[in-house]
């Protein structure tokens, strides 16, 4: 987060229990993060008021006092409208703004066009609800502003995040117990992966590849000279593959042929490579494109290490099972690959590797395995083994002493831009995608068990659209976008407004949702716009491709057999 200078949620889960206002903005936490929602429920039962800002009246919105059903991709407009209302109602936190922020005058100017009426017209949210949220957020003692992929999976996801940060700066709803900004992470270790440097510009521990001092520290430790150049992001790699600069790829634990937007284009790129290595626990669809498959142990139960959660908590992962066949720990595979490349790396335990990280990452320095074990995990920053934990970040912004306060937090001056995939007469419906409670990502893991509440591969349609299009529940429809077309069973969802469709992305073998989505990437985070696709829906008599769940399970078994023969 460039606003505050550290990429992590500012609060602990425990804090939402003490909040008096909770906003879920583009977050269906009730289904996507059920146990985080338990903490929110504690706050709700203690009287916290809840707003849900979401195009869908989701399971989370059902728990809200007020639902703001905005049009997909109008988050920045809504945030500006809220900001302007707070400013005009005289509810800004002037002391905090003067003490801790930069660029307030520019922010006022940027808000100015967004009157309640203009905002209401652009977003589809009634003016009165915008006003109500603005006033409640500004007046709350402790407000938690939570978001998930509904904010980030847009062509301008980074701008969306900045729009929300602006609201926290405007009202001082950050850096205090109970007041914070909470991006709830979608995957078990997406926080840890970034923290450990799996971001092309970063070295482990939030250090910059381009910074010679940071690099020097790693060079001393490893006795090598490191290239000062930033790496490529996933979407830049896709471009480089298109342009023919990138000809060999090594993919670890990722299934881009099914998980990335515009899957047809991804498959074409992987097919054109000179060499593709895939390291995974299954022979995923991506692995079927590989020249070499390296079977790995499942990180969460067949291997040792750490995961870092959405509240910046580093927790120990422990081995409970022996991995099957010749599957190996990821660390061991990488060591063996290095060995073939002529580097004799030592065999190290997970703890030894962690201690190496602690040497170079000040934020993790105090986190010994002993303490992580004794205390059920620790939240970064934790530089000192005897030191206190940091339940929330950026308390420094409230310090009067400039030395303690540090870098001021800038307001982000951003522009509202509608989704790239425009609606027109041919593609008049807006498709948004996501996860359901019982399913996860491309189904590689969640497809393995028989969930009694799995609705499977289907497209959710509003009751009004079903009537208009003459579609009945369970009938097969063809959903088409400018890039692709899939068959799906129609499912009635009264939580959808007319014109809005929803599809889960968890059943790519039966319903390749990402054949429809657009590869319009955020210029900074490089996240694709999974949440906004222009589509049309037609009734069809074509049969659905596969029998839902059972076929999925059978498929995994088949894949697994093949995996065994690869070795």
């Amino acid at each position: 987060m460039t606003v505050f200078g550290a990429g992590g949620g500012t609060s602990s889960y425990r804090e939402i229990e003490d909040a008096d206002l909770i906003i879920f903005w583009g977050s269906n936490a009730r289904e996507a993060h059920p146990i985080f929602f338990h903490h929110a429920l504690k706050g709700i039962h203690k009287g916290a008021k809840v707003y849900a800002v979401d195009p869908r009246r989701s399971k989370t919105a059902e728990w809200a006092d007020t639902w703001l059903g905005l049009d997909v991709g109008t988050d920045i407009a809504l945030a500006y409208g809220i900001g302007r209302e707070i400013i005009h109602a005289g509810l800004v936190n002037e002391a905090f703004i003067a003490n801790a922020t930069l660029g307030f005058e520019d922010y006022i100017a940027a808000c100015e066009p967004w009157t309640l009426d203009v905002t209401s017209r652009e977003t589809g949210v009634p003016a009165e609800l915008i006003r109500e949220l603005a006033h409640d957020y500004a007046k709350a003692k402790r407000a938690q502003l939570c978001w998930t992929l509904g904010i980030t999976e847009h062509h301008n996801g980074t701008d969306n995040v900045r729009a929300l940060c602006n609201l926290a700066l405007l009202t001082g709803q950050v850096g205090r117990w109970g007041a914070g900004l909470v991006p709830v992470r979608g995957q078990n270790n997406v926080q840890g992966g970034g923290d450990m440097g799996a971001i092309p510009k970063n070295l482990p521990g939030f250090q910059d590849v381009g910074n010679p001092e940071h690099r020097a520290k790693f060079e001393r430790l490893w006795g090598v000279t490191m290239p000062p150049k930033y790496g490529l992001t996933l979407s830049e790699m896709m471009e480089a593959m298109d342009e023919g600069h990138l000809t060999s790829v090594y993919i670890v634990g990722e299934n881009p042929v099914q998980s990335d937007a515009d899957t047809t284009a991804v498959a074409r790129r992987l097919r054109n490579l000179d060499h593709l290595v895939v390291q995974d626990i299954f022979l995923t669809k991506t692995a079927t494109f590989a020249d070499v498959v390296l079977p790995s142990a499942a990180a969460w139960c067949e291997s040792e290490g750490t995961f870092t959660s959405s509240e910046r908590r580093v927790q120990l992962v422990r081995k409970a099972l022996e991995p099957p066949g010749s599957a190996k720990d990821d660390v061991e595979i990488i060591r063996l690959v290095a060995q073939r490349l002529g580097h004799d790396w030592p065999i190290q335990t997970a703890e030894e590797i962690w201690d190496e990280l602690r040497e170079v990452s000040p934020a993790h320095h105090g986190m010994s395995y002993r303490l992580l074990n004794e205390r059920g995990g620790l939240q970064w920053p934790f530089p000192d083994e005897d030191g206190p934990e940091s339940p929330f970040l950026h308390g420094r912004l409230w310090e009067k002493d400039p030395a303690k306060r540090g870098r001021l937090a800038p307001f982000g001056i951003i522009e509202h831009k509608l989704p790239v995939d425009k609606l027109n007469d041919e593609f008049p419906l807006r498709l948004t995608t996501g996860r359901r409670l019982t399913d996860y990502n491309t189904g590689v893991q969640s497809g393995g068990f028989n969930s009694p509440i799995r609705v499977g591969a289907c497209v959710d349609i509003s009751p009004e659209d079903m009537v208009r299009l003459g579609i009945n529940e369970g009938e097969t429809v063809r959903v088409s976008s400018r890039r692709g077309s899939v068959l799906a069973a129609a499912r009635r969802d009264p939580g959808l407004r007319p014109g809005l469709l929803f599809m889960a992305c968890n059943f790519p073998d039966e319903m390749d949702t990402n054949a429809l989505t657009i590869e319009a990437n955020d210029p900074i985070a490089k996240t694709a716009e999974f949440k906004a696709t222009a589509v049309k829906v037609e009734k069809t008599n074509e049969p659905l491709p596969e029998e839902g769940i059972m076929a999925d399970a059978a498929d995994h078994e088949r894949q697994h057999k093949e995996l065994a023969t690869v070795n």
Partner: protein
Amino acid sequence: MNAHDPGAAGRMNKSVPLVTITIDGEEVSVPDGSTILTACNAAGKDTPTLCYGDTLTPKNACRVCMVELKGSRVLVPSCSRKVQPGMEVLTDSERVRHSRRLVLELLGSSVDLSTTPRIDEWMARYDADPDRYGERAGESLRRDVHEPGEHHAGNGSVAATMSQPVKIDNDLFVRDYSKCILCYKCVDACGVQWQNSFAIQIAGRGFDSQISTEFAAELPDSACVFCGNCVEVCPTGALSFKSEYDMRADGTWDESQQTQTTTICTYCGVGCNLNLHVQDNKIVKVTAPHDHDVNHGNLCIKGRFGFQHVQNRTDDDKD
């Protein structure tokens, strides 16, 4: 296990004063606000409990933890009664032993306690004889279909029981209400205390009471979201994982051959702690540590049941 962030109260540096009471003639001090049960544990008194749950509000349902409190006309439930300075508590007096024996006998005569941990030990300790109420009545097929107010009193020739057919209506967990002591823990875990799904409640009155879904619908047709947080807190095995149920039926369930490993869930980014119970290199069930303040023993359907992908193994894969 975890002693991390103490919350707002902890940050305000409030130190909690200690309260001293006497248990069986020995003094013991515990933090103000503790229960007599906490004090009993601190004093090394082994107190039987069934409806007590370390993550739940005391329900005072089972009455097996009763202790004698000097000055109190009746015995008091140790799991919910808070300590007060100077209390004199007896845990093994004749009144306490008599009460515990009767509670165990009544439960034992009406409920199948065969999978209740430590029950044999307690029965022996209190000389309980559940068989003295006579032969047990057979299975009832009508517990789910009582009309309100309908009740047929027995004639005393057999001991009334909870006995009824096992409910197997999904692949994840099994409801064997012949083993149910109506302790309400599952209802509380499903309801306002944790999951807030409200899929189950007590239906019926008195001895006809039964944990049930709305209109006794099968679980997949109810409000259940299959988090298994009810199974986590069930004290008798009335609720059990299908994997455990099947292995017990096959005679292959062997806790002496099982390991328990705490790790972190592989799904979303919340970081729930899991206990993997492993037998013969297979996960046979998943529980969660109650004392960890990320998830307090709770999980969602994926964390609790979504492990099958690591053990759809073929014979070729086995070492």
